[in-house]
């Protein structure tokens, strides 16, 4: 957590543009899993007309349709706050359209490359087919997260540059390119698991918390763990 406050500051970037399908779930679960461990939190919703604060601990970006995605990228680049926060060492968790725009470039609806925020060394553009459905992937063992599950719904394909690493290896679904899913670089993490990726993968939520506060005690398994197991079994059946 930042030195000036004992609260974990969660910053939700542009819910007016990047909150297409359940993205709020990531905010709610991160907050809940922190608070169940006695870590106080503060959540800031930053609208696209507001400046992005630089003192946050975890920045969350969600999914969006083509046009809102372009608007969000333009505004984030002009604002500069997210980039400064990342340079300060804040954690970033970006989903789907949000994942694409924190990279170096992403594609518009005609596959023209557009500049991203440039805090994650990935390049995305439109693929030939739309990837829609349940996805399962094994996270890089260095992160201690295990197997993740989610729903993907995107046209983009993503290539990972030398400074970033794939978040996971795809077991089912498409992800970046049919082989890997998501990417991370330090505490900047992007994924195509859209909407409630953290509710469906409690271990991924705990990774973000560990990054910010160090070791955290385990929680009593509850509905999040049940859902995780149930969706894994359903996807691999």
């Amino acid at each position: 957590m930042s030195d000036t406050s004992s609260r974990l500051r969660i910053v939700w970037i542009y819910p007016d543009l990047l909150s297409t399908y359940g993205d709020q779930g990531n905010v709610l679960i991160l907050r809940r899993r922190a608070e169940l461990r006695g870590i106080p939190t503060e959540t800031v919703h930053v609208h696209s007309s507001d400046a992005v604060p630089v003192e946050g601990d975890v920045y969350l970006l969600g999914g969006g349709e083509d046009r809102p995605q372009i608007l969000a990228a333009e505004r984030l680049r002009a604002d500069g706050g997210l980039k400064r926060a990342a340079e300060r060492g804040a954690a970033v968790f970006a989903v789907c359209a949000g994942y694409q725009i924190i990279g170096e470039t992403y594609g518009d609806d005609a596959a023209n490359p557009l500049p991203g925020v440039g805090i994650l060394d990935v390049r995305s553009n439109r693929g030939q087919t739309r990837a829609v459905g349940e996805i399962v992937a094994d996270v890089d063992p260095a992160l201690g997260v295990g197997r993740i599950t989610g729903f993907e719904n995107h046209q983009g394909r993503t290539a990972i540059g030398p400074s970033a690493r794939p978040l996971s290896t795809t077991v089912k679904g498409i992800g970046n390119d049919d082989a890997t899913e998501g990417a991370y670089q330090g505490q900047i993490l992007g994924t195509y698991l859209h909407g409630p990726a953290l509710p469906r993968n409690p271990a991924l939520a705990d990774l973000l918390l560990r990054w910010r506060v160090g070791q955290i005690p385990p929680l009593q398994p509850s509905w999040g763990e049940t859902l995780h197991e149930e969706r894994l079994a359903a996807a691999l059946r």
Partner: protein
Amino acid sequence: MSELPLRAQLAAALGKGAASLSRATGRGDGSVIGGRIALKVEPDLLSKLARGRRLTLVSATNGKTTTTRLIASALRQLGEIATNEHGANMPTGHITALSNRPNARNGVLETDEKYLPQVLRETAPAVVVLMNLSRDQMDRASEINLLAKKWRDALAMSDTHVIANADDPLVAWAGLGARNATWVSAGQRWKEDSWCCPECGGHLKRDPDPHWECPECGLRRPDTTWAVNNATDTVTDPNGQEFRLQLHLPGDANRANGVIALATAAAYGIHPEQALPRLREIESVAGRYTSIVTSGVEVRLLLSKNPAGWLESFAVLDPPRVPVILSVNAQIPDGKDTSWLWDVDYTVLRGRRVFVMGERRTDLALRLETDEVPFEVVDRVDQVIGRLKSEQPDITKIDVIANYTAFQQIRTAYGRVQ
């Protein structure tokens, strides 16, 4: 319609035959198969069947079926009406509806959002009714910004009279493409898909509700001539005259449907005083809002398919002592992605007895746990009734909110109540 060309007559007749066969063999109501066969014989059939009629197309994310029914009831005083009341809202369903009523001068067709531009071109309707657009089954549906753009372009090419909800920015922007529009203030509870200006992308200023405007490009809510007032249950018409709605169908969403229906009836020359008694007669629409009475308990069924719909359903729940069952499936008609459950705020259910069921009840369980709403996991409605009756024998009412196939399963379990 007796002057239909021979080929079109044949196509329509074949379609009707297939439809009755489908019904007779218990495969469905025949609306889709009949239209599909007819289209094979005469691809231009929809245009030919529409010719010479005064049609209204009704499109929206939520409330299409109900509003189509309300408008059809109001228009029946003009005579026979062609309408797709079973909700078959694509061109095949429209063909069936029109073939079944060859002599109806007037018609009301519920129209799938995606098909609206095509059906608009083919049927040249007198009126197009547009109510709301919000996120819905995005694993298979179009992005709504794109949809609004297609609506706007199609309307710009037509002479139709648009009757649209000015309070929904995306809908209003689409309707502003038309040359002739009547603007209705029908309200908008779910705003999470319309913070961003449809014209330029600016962050909309939405204060005081229902006003909205874009500080960047100046796009603003059109001035309205019809308005609903939810607090007083009244509608104001363009002459400033007020009418009590007193619909049987519950909630603000149905008041919105009601004011839209009254404005549409007025476009056909029917005064609200004449239309209202007919709107009030409607108690349920294709099972929606139906109550089943079982073991002395009234079980009310609310169909809601997306976040905007759930928000409206929460608002019509009976007082807090009435328990509620939430049931969610994720089959193809429901959308296979349950992410939208996280867009809804469940904290309003605190203090109410809540049960979760359906194929995706674990998603609901985690969602409610996160919002700190206590709940119980169950398999069936009768299990809930049994449990409640054993605890409080005087229980009289339960509400059920379910998405599409979950709703149909419950209806089927109780004998497809209408």
